[in-house]
């Protein structure tokens, strides 16, 4: 993956449309900020609402204390109906401690004193008795209505229990409500101080929250900067710039990671250098070895050429005297004819036959050595197959006629003309026919040419009704110097090179040879080679 592709992939993430600085740092800062802001807001709300409640609670408690004090002072006034005194004590508390109204009523609901605002509709005495326990708010929500009962003892009723009560230390059981003190407590100043409290809390929370967010951002950057450097470094390494290193000296996990990164880069650099070095040395070794091989090859080629020249020379030198011997033996046999003793005649025939065998042998050995040297030149020409086969068959016609073995040559018109090396085709067929003639004492021999297993191939089949080959020998008949079976007697001649030559020639012409044989029934050799050997096909394979 190229560096450009890496960058594109990185910038394509959903949270960072085209901008890199909202990465991990952004998420870290954002998440921390959200936690800080939410915590800040929740704490502020909780603490401030509790403080706010406490402010009202204290105000109400104070109002209740005032009301209870007035109630305690009002016992005589309520009992005696002393409205002036009650009005005085009411007026005394008015305007102080947020008290905006004060009233005293007796248990029958008669208003004994009333001063200040908002005293309407305080309700019946039953309701007042209930309001003793609960602080209510007036309909306009401007006042708290606080009620304190005015209690008094009726000592005349407990004359008998007085001593007993005194012992118990409690006289409050004998006191009853004779009236109520109603106090209206303005919420204005409490509301104002609660508002101030909230304002202060909100300001404070905002400042703390902003500081927290700023801290979170700074922290996130601080944490992420070395990671960014690591990321840049890994990209550099991915792009192959192994000289990259990251400068993070912190003492934490990031520092350890950075150190590991630097170490990794260093060891990468190291191993790459080693690899380069090794490569260079290897290349030098290969070059040296190649040169050696080339030299050896050259030597071998020279040696092979020498051998071929030697063989060509030897074959010529060997064949020339043999041809002379054969020629003279022939002349002698034909010239003398029936006139010589059968005994001498047999001698002449022996000379002639062994000389020919010798010639064949030499020819075969030379042919094979030429083939084995790997230098098979192809001479591709267009020719008719039938005359080639007939020419080979003609060589054995006399021999076969003497034995009473028929020879049949048959060419399918579809393969009348071939385009390949004519001499080599003839050599193949000659070797096969030599064998067929050699191992067939009676019956028939046939040479058949037709289209092969593929339409581009010509199948040339040499069939005989001779000795056949044992199944266990079928695989090895194409090996060099291999003569198998009982037929391999010295009398039949040959050195076991014929089929090896056939095999190599077939390969040279781009074809195959196979054998099918049964002992005592006969053998069939099938050669399949291309009808048209295109000149482009390599002329030879190395042996």
């Amino acid at each position: 993956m190229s560096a450009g592709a890496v960058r594109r992939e990185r910038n394509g993430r959903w949270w960072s449309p085209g901008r890199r600085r909202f990465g991990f740092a952004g998420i870290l800062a954002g998440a921390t900020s959200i936690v800080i802001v939410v915590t800040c807001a929740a704490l502020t709300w909780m603490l401030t609402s509790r403080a706010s409640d406490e402010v009202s609670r204290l105000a109400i408690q104070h109002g209740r204390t005032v009301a209870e004090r007035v109630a305690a002072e009002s016992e005589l006034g309520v009992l005696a109906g002393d409205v002036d005194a009650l009005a005085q004590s009411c007026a005394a508390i008015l305007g102080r401690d947020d008290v905006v109204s004060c009233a005293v009523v007796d248990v029958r609901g008669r208003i004994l004193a009333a001063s200040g605002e908002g005293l309407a509709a305080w309700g019946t005495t039953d309701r007042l008795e209930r309001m003793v326990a609960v602080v209510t708010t007036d309909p306009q929500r401007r006042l708290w209505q606080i009620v304190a009962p005015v209690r008094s003892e009726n000592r005349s009723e407990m004359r008998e229990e007085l001593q007993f009560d005194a012992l118990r230390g409690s006289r409050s059981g004998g006191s009853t409500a004779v009236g109520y003190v109603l106090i209206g407590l303005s919420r204005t100043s409490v509301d104002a101080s609660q508002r101030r409290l909230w304002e202060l809390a909100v300001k404070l929370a905002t400042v703390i929250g902003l500081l927290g967010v700023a801290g979170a951002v700074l922290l996130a950057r601080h944490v992420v900067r070395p990671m960014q450097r690591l990321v840049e470094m890994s990209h550099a390494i991915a792009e192959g710039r192994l000289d990259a290193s990251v400068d993070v000296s912190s003492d934490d996990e990031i520092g350890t990671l950075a150190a590991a990164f630097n170490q990794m880069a260093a060891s990468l650099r190291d191993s790459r250098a080693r690899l380069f070095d090794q490569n260079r040395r290897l290349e030098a070794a290969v070059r040296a070895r190649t040169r050696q091989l080339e030299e050896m090859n050259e030597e071998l080629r020279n040696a092979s050429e020498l051998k071929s020249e030697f063989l060509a020379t030897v074959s010529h030198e060997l064949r020339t005297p043999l041809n002379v011997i054969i020629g003279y033996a022939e002349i002698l046999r034909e010239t003398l004819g029936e006139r010589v003793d059968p005994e001498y005649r047999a001698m002449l025939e022996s000379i002639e036959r062994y000389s020919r065998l010798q010639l064949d042998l030499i020819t075969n050995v030379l042919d094979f050595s030429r083939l084995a040297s790997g230098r098979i030149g192809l001479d591709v020409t267009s020719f008719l197959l039938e005359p080639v086969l007939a020419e080979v068959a003609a060589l054995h016609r006399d021999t076969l006629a003497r034995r009473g073995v028929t020879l049949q040559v048959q060419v399918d018109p579809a393969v009348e003309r071939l385009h390949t090396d004519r001499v080599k085709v003839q050599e193949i067929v000659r070797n096969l026919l030599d064998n067929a003639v050699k191992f067939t004492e009676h019956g028939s021999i046939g040479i058949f040419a037709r289209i092969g297993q593929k339409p581009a191939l010509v199948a040339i089949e040499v069939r005989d009704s001779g000795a056949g080959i044992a199944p266990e020998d079928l695989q090895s008949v194409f090996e060099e110097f291999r003569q198998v079976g009982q037929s391999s007697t010295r009398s039949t001649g040959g050195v076991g090179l014929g089929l090896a030559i056939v095999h190599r020639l077939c390969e040279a012409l781009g074809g195959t040879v196979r054998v099918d044989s049964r002992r005592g029934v006969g053998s069939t050799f099938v050669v399949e080679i291309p009808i048209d050997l295109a000149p482009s096909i390599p002329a030879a394979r190395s042996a």
Partner: protein
Amino acid sequence: MHSEVGASGRDRKGPRRRAKLGRALLAALALLPCLAEAADTQPRVAVLRTSRIGPFADAIGALETALRADRRQPEILTFDLEAGGDVASAMESVRRSAPAVVVSVGSLATSLALEAAPPLDAPIVFSMVLYPAESGFLSGGRAITGASLDVPPREQLSTLQRLLPEAHSVGVLYSPRETGAVVAAAKPVAERLGLQLVSEAVDEPSKAPVVLDSLMKRVDALWTVADGGVFTPQTTPALLLAALRSRKPMLGLSPGQVRSGALAALVVDYEDVGRQTAEIVGSILGGRRAADVPITHPRHVTLALNLRTAELLGVKIPPDVLSEAHVLVQ
């Protein structure tokens, strides 16, 4: 209330107060030249007062009106004795004005007039004074008489009897030094009326409510005497409250006490006391010796009632009493 002021005033005589009175008198001296002209033909009456408001003002107003109506046309000189003023110089100007009669309004003014040194020549007629004899005003051998505020115990107790026919035992608190004699004198009176007067002495005012609590268990009603050793601004509400808590009726001392919870009180007509004073002055100007003129008691006394207290106590006020009474709290 005035009785308490008088009582406490007598106890708090001192140089500071006299100096203040003197300063007040200096102011009065400025008026002397124009007053001196009529000195030969008209008898002069010097009125010494320590307060210009409330019952004193009512009494002095009625006194002056009555004197002006006198055929001798006495010249009335008013001297303000300011509390803490220069009393000596004030008395000096009184002496120099040579009054035929000195009228002292209230117990404080009376005791200042009696203590003047050198003594004033003119006879002293007091006004608005409670328990003059018990206060020692009559024992100095001076020419002195006047109009007292004392409603006789007999009248008080019989009123109580009319108001509360069921009551048989009546309690009273007193400090022996101040009203021991009054209470002692009232006992036979009560007995004659068929009432049992149960008295409890109070050593100091702060103990009064406690003493009252125990007393209340033994009596049917409470009678009061104007005693500065029992009724102080601090103890009065506590005593009233103790009485109310005990659900026992109390015959109080003043309309103020009735408003504050006493069932009833006998209220003196202060203007009539002023007129009584004028009558005594008239008879002295007419030539009678002060010693021969008897000390008077209030002639017009009305009953003030607190019906709310009555309701709380379950007291049913007899209709004839109710018709005469002045209801202060409905």
